[in-house]
């Protein structure tokens, strides 16, 4: 057949394509993460130090990314802002997954009353538009990094519970779980040996996606002035500040916007890739 000669090249091209699609987003995320972790040792100017004479400077050799409305160094604020985004982005979904995962897995495995209660709880939490609930939480808890993380963590519980419940339901009805019962395995052993190993990959993929969702949510809160309190830098807050000078110094809004966009884009890319890897329909091939 004529296609037999062309076939190997298709495979090769796909592999090369894959490696680039992996290297770029992974590289960006790692760069952001490393800069955020090592920020204190990079000799950056204080992100909160104002120098009003130098305000709204465009990028130059002195200020690599320019300065903002109050003359603060943008590069330093972006890097310290990355720290905020990553702390909230990683911790909040983790909290959600610990609690939501436990709820979802027990609901999906034990069914019955536990399931009914869990679904009711999820329903009520989901009845609030997420951002409105987050606003209300932080407004009344008080603005701090911890409270923002807590509020967004609580918000990610229902989604995590849903994902883990749906996955558990799909696996708990498989014959191998029934087989484990016929040999007399306890519920705990079935949950940890048979169900959890199959549910975790999907949860991990969802966690990756949740990181980018939470980073955006934190940005939105800070943008509205209800997230991380000033002068602590946060990408959302920087975009909000920059908006006031959009006509004279657009870089003050557009640079943090671009950084945030690239980070979220990269995380989505990686999340999609992991999800495809763990998708049983695909890995079966």
């Amino acid at each position: 057949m004529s296609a037999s000669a062309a076939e190997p090249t298709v495979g090769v091209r796909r592999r090369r394509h894959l490696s680039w699609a992996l290297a770029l987003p992974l590289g960006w995320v790692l760069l952001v993460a490393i800069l955020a972790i090592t920020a204190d040792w990079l000799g950056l100017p204080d992100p909160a130090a104002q120098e009003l004479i130098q305000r709204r400077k465009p990028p130059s050799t002195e200020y690599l990314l320019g300065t903002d409305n109050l003359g603060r160094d943008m590069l330093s604020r972006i890097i310290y802002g990355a720290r905020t985004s990553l702390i909230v982005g990683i911790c909040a979904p983790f909290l959600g997954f610990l609690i939501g995962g436990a709820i979802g897995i027990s609901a999906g495995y034990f069914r019955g009353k536990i399931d009914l209660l869990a679904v009711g709880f999820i329903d009520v939490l989901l009845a609030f538009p997420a951002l409105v609930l987050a606003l209300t939480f932080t407004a009344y808890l008080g603005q701090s990094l911890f409270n923002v993380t807590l509020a967004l963590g609580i918000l990610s519980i229902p989604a995590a519970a849903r994902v883990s419940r749906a996955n558990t339901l799909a696996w708990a009805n498989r014959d191998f779980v029934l087989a484990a019962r016929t040999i007399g395995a306890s519920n705990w052993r079935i949950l940890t040996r048979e169900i959890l190993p199959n549910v975790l990959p999907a949860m991990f993929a969802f966690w990756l996606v949740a990181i980018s969702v939470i980073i955006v949510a934190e940005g939105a809160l800070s943008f509205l002035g209800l997230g991380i309190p000033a002068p602590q830098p946060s990408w959302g807050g920087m975009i909000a500040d920059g908006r006031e000078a959009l006509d004279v110094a657009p870089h003050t809004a557009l640079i943090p916007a671009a950084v945030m966009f690239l980070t979220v884009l990269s995380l989505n890319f990686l999340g999609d890739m992991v999800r495809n890897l763990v998708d049983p329909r695909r890995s079966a091939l």
Partner: protein
Amino acid sequence: MHWLARQVLRLAVVLLCVTLLTYLIVNILPGDVAIVILGSLATPQDIAGLRADLGLDRPMLVRYFDWLGSALSGDLGRSYRNGEPVAQAIADRLPVSLQLMVMAQIIALGIAVPAALLSVRRPGGLFDRMSASAAFGFLATPNFMLGIVLIYLFSVTLDLLPATGFTPMSESLWGNFESMILPSLTLGLIEWTVLMRVLRSDLLTTLKEDFILLARAKGLPPWRVLLLHALRPSSFTLITVLGLNIGGLIGGAVIVEQIFALPGVGRLLLGGIFNRDLILVQGTVSFIAAGFVLINFLVDMLYAVLDPRVRYVRFRS
């Protein structure tokens, strides 16, 4: 109709839980209203007096049921700040928010459905890859960022549209459209990506079904197979997502109203939060949550009407 009765009961329980939860968040958390109103220089006697006037000295559950009772008759209390009835404030601002969300939804569906249909004509083809990339890009764009980029492009750089502000429809139809188009685009351009992806993936699944093969074997032309046989059974997830995404849309509306200075419910809520106007926040959040729950309830009903299989199972018993 047994099923319907149970759904209505469930709806009532969820609504009760939602308003109670709102009440708890707003009232348990620190921040005394009386101090907010009177300022930090007020004497303890003044504060105690005001608390009694406002009924804040009674147990919280009692106050909740009081509030619920009047809320059911349409009275959400009066703002602590300016004494304006909360229900009236919401009613005044609701049309703006609704117009914003409806226009955004029209834009989103107007892009998503044709894009999905064109994509699945040749999966992996040029159009499919381009629309997938565009969707991926917009999906990674936070709405507050997109709003600012749109202002920068259309107001600052091109000077075509007003950056902020709102013109009521009664004043000028065109002016109203001009003031609403950027906010609606901000929401719609993000919303379509999710809808397109969901519809595309369901269409691809449906197109692999035997009944599509059978439709092709009947000699039906491809567009007819796509529109008459594949689209409807593929649109159920889309409808569910439309309902669920209204939550995201409401959150987006809060931000967009803030960016573009539109006098909608979201901006009312933000004002209430900044001013610590408890009764206003309580009323607005409860209203939004109740609206969201109701919309999802209606979507569920619509689902049953559209899918004869669900209708069969649910309405026969």
